[in-house]
Structure formats: structure tokens, C-alpha cells
């Protein structure tokens, strides 16, 4: 079973993603900010991380850099409400950029693609 870590400051988003992804058969771990994500990284050992960009405290971009320092091959999907960070070079170190949407189809497809499930 593939392990996915959801990093998002919005509780309801975390809840939604967890419900959906668990339903799809993934093991899901939640983190409410970058700091928590980094702490849980070594314990949970995820196969993939979804990373919200705008978060209080350590934001998604900073978190991406930190994770990349150790985990060069871990697939990371950047998530944000809009596409404004697509031009930001710093997000280019991630594997994908998904704009948040009530319809989770794009997110799920990207996850499967990156995990080699498709």
C-alpha cells in the first residue's frame, strides 16, 4: 500500500483528501504545516507528498527545499489555490503542480502517474 503525506493548513482540505485517498486505497498521513511535515517525514516514510504552498509558518516552497535536501527522488506535488506559483522557479524542483479543485480527479491522476500506478 502506497503511503501519501498530505501537507495543508486547512483542516477541511486535509480531511477531504484523507477520506478520498484512503477510499482509493492509499495510506494517508496528515501534516498541518511544513514543520510538522518535516518531523513526520522520517517516521512515516511517504511514497508521495502533496504540499500546499501558502501555509503559515514554513510555507510549501521552503518545505520543498528542505525535503529535497534529503529526498531527491520523493515525488512531490505542489498544491495551491491558484496557478500563480507555476512561474516560480523554486516550485520547479517539485514533480507536479496541481491547482486545488473540488473535483479531485486531476490530483488523483497525478498521484497515480507519479507513483507509477497508471
Amino acid at each position, binding site marked *: 500500500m502506497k503511503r501519501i503525506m498530505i501537507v495543508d493548513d486547512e483542516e477541511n482540505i486535509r480531511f477531504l483528501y484523507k477520506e478520498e485517498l484512503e477510499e482509493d486505497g492509499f495510506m494517508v498521513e496528515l501534516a498541518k504545516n511544513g514543520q510538522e511535515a518535516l518531523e513526520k517525514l522520517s517516521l512515516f516514510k511517504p511514497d508521495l507528498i502533496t504540499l500546499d504552498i501558502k501555509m503559515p509558518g514554513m510555507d510549501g516552497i521552503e518545505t520543498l527545499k528542505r525535503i529535497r535536501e534529503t529526498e531527491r527522488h520523493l515525488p512531490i506535488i505542489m498544491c495551491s489555490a*491558484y496557478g500563480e506559483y*507555476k512561474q516560480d522557479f523554486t516550485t520547479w524542483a517539485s514533480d507536479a503542480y496541481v491547482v486545488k479543485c*473540488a*473535483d*479531485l480527479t486531476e490530483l488523483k491522476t497525478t498521484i497515480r502517474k507519479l507513483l507509477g500506478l497508471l
Partner: protein
Amino acid sequence: MAAHPDPYDLLKSIIHLSTSSIPIEAKLDGMLQILSDALESDRCLLLKPDKIGKNGFLSHLASEKKPLWVDEGSSFNKEGVLSEEKDLLCPSFACIPLYDETAFQGFLYIAFSKSRRFSTQETNLILLIAKEMEEAIRNAHLHRKAEQTISELIALQEMGKAVTSTLKLRELFELILVTGLKILKAKGGALRVEDRRTGELEVKCSLGEYHLNPLDEKIARRVFHTRTPLSLHHSSEEKPSLSILCAPFLSKGKSFGTLTFYDKEANLPKFDERDFQLLLTMANQMSCAIENALVHYETSEMAREHEKRVKQLSTLWELNKALLTTVNFERIVHMMLTAITIGDGLGFNRAMLFMVNEKKHILEGTLAVGPDSAEEAGRIWTTLSQRKENLSDLIAQIQLFPETNSILNSIVKGIQIPLEQEECILSRTVLEGRPFNIRFPYSEEGWLQIHCERGCSLGSEVGCYASEHLSRNPKVYSFATVPLWGKGKVIGVILVDNLYNQNPVTDGDIQFLTMFTNQAGLAIENTILYRNLEEVHRELKETQALLVHQEKMVALGELSTHIAHEIKNPLVSIGGFARRLDRAIPDESQEKRYTETIIKEVGRLEKILDDIHTYTHDESLAFKEWDLRDILEESVSMVSEGFHGGGIQIVKQFAEEPPKVRGDYHQLKEAFSNLISNAYQAMDGKGTLSIRIHPISKNGSSFIRVEVQDTGNGIDPENLHNIFNPFYSTKDARLGLGLPIVHKIILSHRGQIEVDNHPGKGVTFIITLPVQQPSPPPLAPVLRPDQIGTTEDGGGDSGEGERPKNSP
């Protein structure tokens, strides 16, 4: 000897005769008769001086002034007696010379056929009668002289009266000449006066045709210049004799004219001294009158001139006042042309304005004012003359009706004349900056053909069109052009003509027009400046409005970004859970519709939010034209600041003026900075960094090629496949995130990146960018492994033209 009558009775009858009012000839005849009867003489005569031959005994006697008595016993020397005098030599005779105060008047001659003696009584009687005859002759002379003088005085008085009765020069000249002619009884005359401007003598009035004689003109000039009167009798055998009297008109020692009379109205057409004196008197008297009349004439001319000037000035003032009431260009030019054509203004029939277009270097027809036909002209003038309005009222109406739709106006508006067409009178007016006043005699074939090689549109259209209206014969068309001066330069040309009434355009008209157009030119210049000012002002206002709008948009953008972010997350939750609910609810249940509605509506909201976001954040790259030399210079200086290694030599080989590249400045700078930074790191503080830029051509398209070459150790061939893979890990420090970013940026600019790798010697990165890029490329795609040119398993085969060149 006969009985002597009573001497008393004799003397009585003589005195009676002498005091009677009968003519002198009858008196003298009567006296001779009485004497003859009394002495019973055979002959008793009065010998007139003109009957006495020269050098005869009679003339001798006359000079001696002594009476001669030849009687019985006295001897008479017959020597010196002329043949015609011989029959006077009777046996006894007496000759008594008669004198009045000055002149010899003849002899009283009394003769007897028989020799006899003159008694003392007889001698005394004869001498007494001779004395009486002298007296009678003198009286008669005096009487005639007095009568003549009186008549002359009356004539002169009449002349004096007449000349003071008029100050009209023509009448005065005529009066002088006619009266002079009457007084002098001359056959002809001429009066000349000097023209003050030319100094030439002009015949002002003449009677007869004597003044046509060239001799007359010569004499008049001589008299005029010498200021000396002249009396001349010219007689020759071939020509009839000519008698001339000429006197100058003198005033303060200067002559200003001459008065000449010719040929006396008498048997002998010769003027005498008296006539000459009379002429001098007349000339003297008349000088004053003529001078007065001349001064009066000049004064009234001057006054008329001044009146005209004052009228012009007040017209100008009125017109200028009107011109100052507006800064609207169209209105002001219309007012100007109307002022030129209005009767109380400058009074031309038609006026046309051509403005200089400096950009196109042409003259453009701007406006024309004037009637289209003679009938219309007549109608307008009649209406205007009935209105009796003053100029300012009329101009007020000009302001009210600024539109004109005449045929002439539409013709003129279509005219464009190149300024270099020097043959055209309009162009010449601009080039030479002076007015032209031109008259064209009528000719059937296109009579307003201005001498233009290319054929002037003015000549072909306005002229031919106008020719129909010329009615007067011979047909003469005159027009004038006047330059319109702005501040120091000609800004246009005004063409005026008098097509309908065919009045000639005088130099005075042109002068007045020029005075007016000089003022109008400034007014027009002002309106142009004002129009420009207005334009600039409007542009500024528009820019300001745009700025305000942009500022608003920025504020709105910030606000909406904030709101959009706040709303988006809850919306995603709502929508997400609604979908979960939707899946849990059976298709046929009522609740299914609720969840579907929620999903649909959330979708709509998301769409709205995305639209707002897109609108406020223009995410497209700022693609502009850039000179790569600038970008590379900037990149080099930025990178070199970060490295302290002075051992790095930088060699730049830039083409001069390489073609520009369309792209995003920051992205391109990021790409080249990365390459340069990598090169610095590879050389570890010592080596040569070469940067080259040159344009190349490939498959018919233009590209620009940038090479960044270092003298480091090159890249390990094992790693070469993966250098653009962001996830490829190597010990080589520079193979971090830098190269994948460079790769991504160059791809997004539709360029290529190549690597010329020489392990141990160095590496060259070669970037090729297209020069012509008509439209910006689509947004940089999201960087995903499947899109990266060189992936772990792809081996650099999926990139858009990126071909890493492996060194052997």
C-alpha cells in the same frame, strides 16, 4: 484873298467841334473843313505819320518839330523831297507838326495853288487850330486808353470774382483760361501745372489745339524753369506765323505752372506789349487763386486718404475684436474669410484659404467663402445693403453660422498643391512670403492657366469654373494672393478675387488685406497652438484616467486575490464533500438532486474565482525585444560579484548589433546567470570564461547563438545524460537545480541547448534562440518528469530539439 471870316466865329465852331462827342476822325475832318473854308485853301490835309516816307523833307520836319511856312518871297529848298512828296509842293503851303505829349501825330498841311503870304493872324489861326487838333487827338487817345483799361479792369475783376467763386480745380482752370482768352482776344490757350510727384508740367486745361505744338511745350518748360515770362512772335515763310504769350505762375519765388495764350483775334495776330503786361497781371493774380485751390485740393485728398485710413483702421479693429472672441480654428478662419468678403470689411468678391501642411510639404485648400454665381452674389449684396447693420453685428452673424456648403468651398477643400511647385502662384506666395496682384486678360482657352508645368489644380478648376461668370467686355480677371504669417513663418495663403463685379484689385486693397491678414495670421497661429495644447491636455487626461484605472485594478487585484484565496479553500472542501455525498446517495433518491446542485454551483463559483484571478494576475511572461549583449553583461556582472576569484579571465566576443531576441528578461537572465555561475564553479577561481554572441542562419531562419565556455574539468560523461534532470543527483556541485532551470527557460523560448563537453579541458554550453518570434510562446508548462527533455530513462529523446552533444 477872300474875306476873312470872323476869327471869333471860327474858333467858336472849332471849339464846338472839339468838345462834341463825335469820333475823332469826324472831329479832325470837321476842323480841316472849317480851316479850309476859312482860308479858302486848295488843299487841307492831316498827314498821318504812317503815310510819311522816311528821309523825306516831312520826316526831317517831324524830327525838327518846327512848322514850315512856304509863301510869297520865301524860298524852299527842294533837295531831299521824295517823289511822292512832290505833289505836296504847292506855290504856298504850310506844314505844322502835331504832337501830343510823347508822340508825333502827323502834319496839318494846308496848301494854295497861288503864291500868297500868310498873315500873322492866319499863322496864329493855323497854329491855334493845329494845337486844337493835337488836343483832340490826345483826348481821343486818352479816352480810348481809359476805355480799354476800364474794360480790362472789369475783365480782371470778373476773373477775380470767378476764381474766388470756386475751389474746384477743373472749374478754376477753365475759368482762368476762358476769361484770359476774352481779355487778350487770343485764339487759343493752355494752362499747365506741375505734378508734385513727378515734377513734370501737365496740361490741365486748354483751348484750341496750340498746346499740341511741340514748340509750345518747349516754351512752357522754359518759362517754368526760368520763372521769366516770354512774348514771342514766330514767323517764317513756310509756316503761318505764331504769336505766343507765356507767363509762369509764381508762389514764394517758385514756379508751379504756366499760362499761355496764342494768336490775337485780329487782322494782325500779334500781341502787343499791353497784352503781355495784361497776361503778367493775370498770371500774378491767378497764381494765388490756383495755389489756394491746389492746397485745398491736396488737403481734401489728404483728408479723404485719412478718412479711408481711419475707416480701415476701425474696420481692422472691429475685425480683430471679433477674431479675439474665439480660439476655435474653424470658426476663426471662417470669420477671417467672411471679413475679407463682406462689403463693409475688405469687400472682395471671394476669398479662399490654403494652409501649409509642413509634414506633407503641401498647400491644402482649407476654406472658401463667396457666392457660387453672379445671381447669388447680387442677391447677397442686395440683402446686405438693405440691412444697414454695422460690422460687429455682421460678424456676430458669422459666428452664428459657421457652416458653408458652397460649390466653391468643396472645390477648394479638394485642392492640394505641392510646395515645391514653384510655378504655381500659391506656392510662390508661400516660398517668397509676399503678395501677388495679378490680372489676366481674357482668353477663350482656360484663361486662368497659371504657368505650371504640372498643371495647377487652381488653374484648371477654380479658374475655368469662374470664367463663366465674367460678363464685362473685354473680360479681365484679376486676383491677388497674400501670405498668411504666423510667428515668423508663412502658415498659409489667402487668394482673393473680384469675379462678379470685376473691380480691379488695387495695391491699396492688397495693403489693407495684408494689414488684416497679419493680424489674422497671429490669431490663427494662436488657435493652432491652442488646439495643440488642447490635444496634449486631452492626452494627459486620458493618461491620467488610465493610470487611475490601473491603480484601481491593482487595488482590486490585491483585494480579489485575498478574497479569492480565503474563499477557494472552503469552496474546495464544500465541493469535495458534496462529491463524496453525491457518490453515497443512490441515483434515484431526491437528495441526489441536492448534491448535484451543490457540485454544480461550487463549480460555477470556482470558475468565477479562477476568472477573477486570471484577470487580476496576468501570468503571461513579459515577452519583449531584448539585446542579448545587455542580458549577458548583466548576468556576468551579477555572477562575478558573488565570486572573489580574480583569476578568472573573461573574454567576450559579441557581434556588433546582433538581432534582438523576443523573450522574458528575468528568465533569460536567470538562464545565463546559471550557466555563468556553473562555469565559475567549474574553474574554481582560475581559468578563462569565454562568452560569444553571433547571429547565424539555419534552414532559412535567423537565429542567435550564444556560447558560454569554461576551462574547467568538463562533465563526467557518465552524468552527461542526466544534467538537465532536476532529480539527478551527482557529486558535482553545479549539477543541482541550475541546469534543469536553464533547460526549461530555453525551451520556453523555443530555443535549443547543446553541450560540447571535453572532460579535463572544459565544457561549452551552446544556446540557440530564434530571432523572429511573432507571438509569445504558450506559458511555460509545468515542469514534470515526462516533459523534461532528458529523463532517467528517456535519454534526451523527448526534448523539443535539445540534443546534448556527447564528447567522444
